[in-house]
């Protein structure tokens, strides 16, 4: 079997309850002096371990506030774990907080180049895919409009179009399907299906059972700061449903 593309080994991350975070000079300079969590800190989750192989489609399940989005951010590398390691061996296209990844003062055109460039796509390649992105996002008429004048649906469409044309082998999707109207949603789902069919690895956070069943073969279930379920998607969904109805 091929080596896994995502390995989470005993991963944990903690946050501060208090908005004002205390910062000691010692903590700045001496590595590891702040190991013991202070009273106002809590672990979003701990001891999370899993391996994902190329081509797997994984659904992340759990109630609100169980750290699903945080786990996705750790895989995307936009957050770092406080414990354990996460190893990702392939390029990642994060479809996370889509509309916030746009710079509102820049035009749609500049945003496409910026977003794709930030993911390491060379300019020539962006030029090549530009038309495709614009068509998919349906923003032809607003290419030179600053994105701050866009509706949130338009921003979401644009970001989705860019992120899915990055050709990254790993795709992280966090509730993006909430953006856009029904027609665009259908288009997004088709595009995602196409990508998963193409051998890409998918990580999906969703509360929609049909979506999870449609795309995913494997489910991870986060509850009370632990990974409590890891198996075929139907089984984990059943486990989740049972625990929710069981109180």
């Amino acid at each position, binding site marked *: 079997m091929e080596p896994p593309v995502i*390995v989470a*080994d005993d*991963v944990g991350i903690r*946050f*501060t309850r208090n908005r004002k*975070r205390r*910062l000691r000079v010692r*903590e*700045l*300079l001496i*590595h590891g002096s702040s190991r013991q969590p202070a009273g106002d800190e809590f672990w979003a989750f701990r001891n999370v371990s899993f391996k994902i192989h190329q081509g797997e489609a994984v659904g992340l399940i759990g109630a609100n506030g169980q750290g699903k989005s945080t786990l996705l*951010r*750790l895989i*995307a*590398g*936009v*957050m*770092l*774990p*406080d*414990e*354990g*390691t*996460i*190893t*990702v*061996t*392939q*390029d*990642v296209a*994060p479809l*996370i*907080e889509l509309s*916030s*990844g*746009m*710079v509102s*003062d820049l035009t749609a055109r*500049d945003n496409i*180049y*910026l977003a794709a*460039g*930030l*993911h*390491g796509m*060379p*300019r020539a390649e962006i030029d090549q895919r530009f038309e495709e992105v614009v068509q998919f996002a349906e923003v032809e008429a607003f290419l030179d409009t600053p994105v701050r004048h866009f509706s949130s649906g338009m921003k979401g469409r644009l970001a989705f179009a860019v992120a899915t044309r990055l*050709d*990254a*082998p790993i795709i992280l999707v966090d509730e993006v399907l909430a953006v856009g109207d029904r027609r665009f949603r259908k288009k997004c789902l088709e595009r995602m299906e196409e990508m998963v069919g*193409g*051998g*890409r690895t998918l990580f999906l956070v969703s509360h929609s059972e049909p979506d999870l069943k449609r795309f995913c073969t494997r489910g991870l279930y986060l509850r009370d700061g632990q990974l409590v379920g890891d198996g075929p998607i139907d089984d984990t969904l059943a486990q989740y449903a049972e625990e929710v109805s069981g109180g």
Partner: protein
Amino acid sequence: MVAIRDPGGQIAPRGIRGERGVRARVREIVAHRSVLRLLITRDLKVKYEKSVLGYVWSILEPLLLAFVYYFVFGVIMGVGTEDYLVYLLAGLLPWLWASSTINASTGALTGQARLIKTSSVPREIWVLRLVGAKWVDYVLSLPVLVLFAILYRRAPHLGHLALLPFVMVVQAILLTGIALLLSSISVMFRDVKNIVKIVMRLLFYFSPILYGFEKIQKLPDVIVQFYTLNPFVGILELNRAVWFPDELHNAGISWMSAVLPTIVLTAALFALGWTVFARLERAVLKEL
């Protein structure tokens, strides 16, 4: 089959046990140099392309400041040196590169929170981008200095001129270190921004811009020693020595002794800045 793009150094495990060392960090930054170029050119485009007076704006500030100081100190108080306008500009331009970078560094991460939170480029890039963009502004303002040097018929000292690229590199490293330090700390303490503003305003008067280091040397040793803790002393002195070489010679200091403390301080601040930045990275990403 999916084509696998170079993951840009992401293969290194992220986490406590796999804490990235200096080498891994440098490798990641180098792998993302195209992103750095993209961000800097975008900054410059926004500044110079979108407004007709873009270039004029960037040279207007140093020019107006130089005229004001020239008028106050050179004309009214009569304490200016020979060719005082050139003298002022020679120190003012590198100082403005420093002060604009340091003042903006407190917002280097907080101002870009949205992009930082959605992309995995090494966080140092957001700081390097600031130093780089301000450096371009600085280089673009240098023709003003040359113009006034020509008007005053001052010839550059070629030996010192040859040192200028080296001094620029030292200043870039120094500013990167300070910016790494301040950008990460300001995410945790939003007050840092205001403190930095005040400190930079004070530091202006404690730097050899309106006057030369030779004036300080005449003061008691304690003051001289304290004064040379300012890492910009050597940088500004050498910048001016290009047009006013006698000042260094009259003061009996070689370029090396003017710059040596600066180099030591630069190395120390760079190491400190990067250490703090790396140490705070985890918390900064949660806080943004």
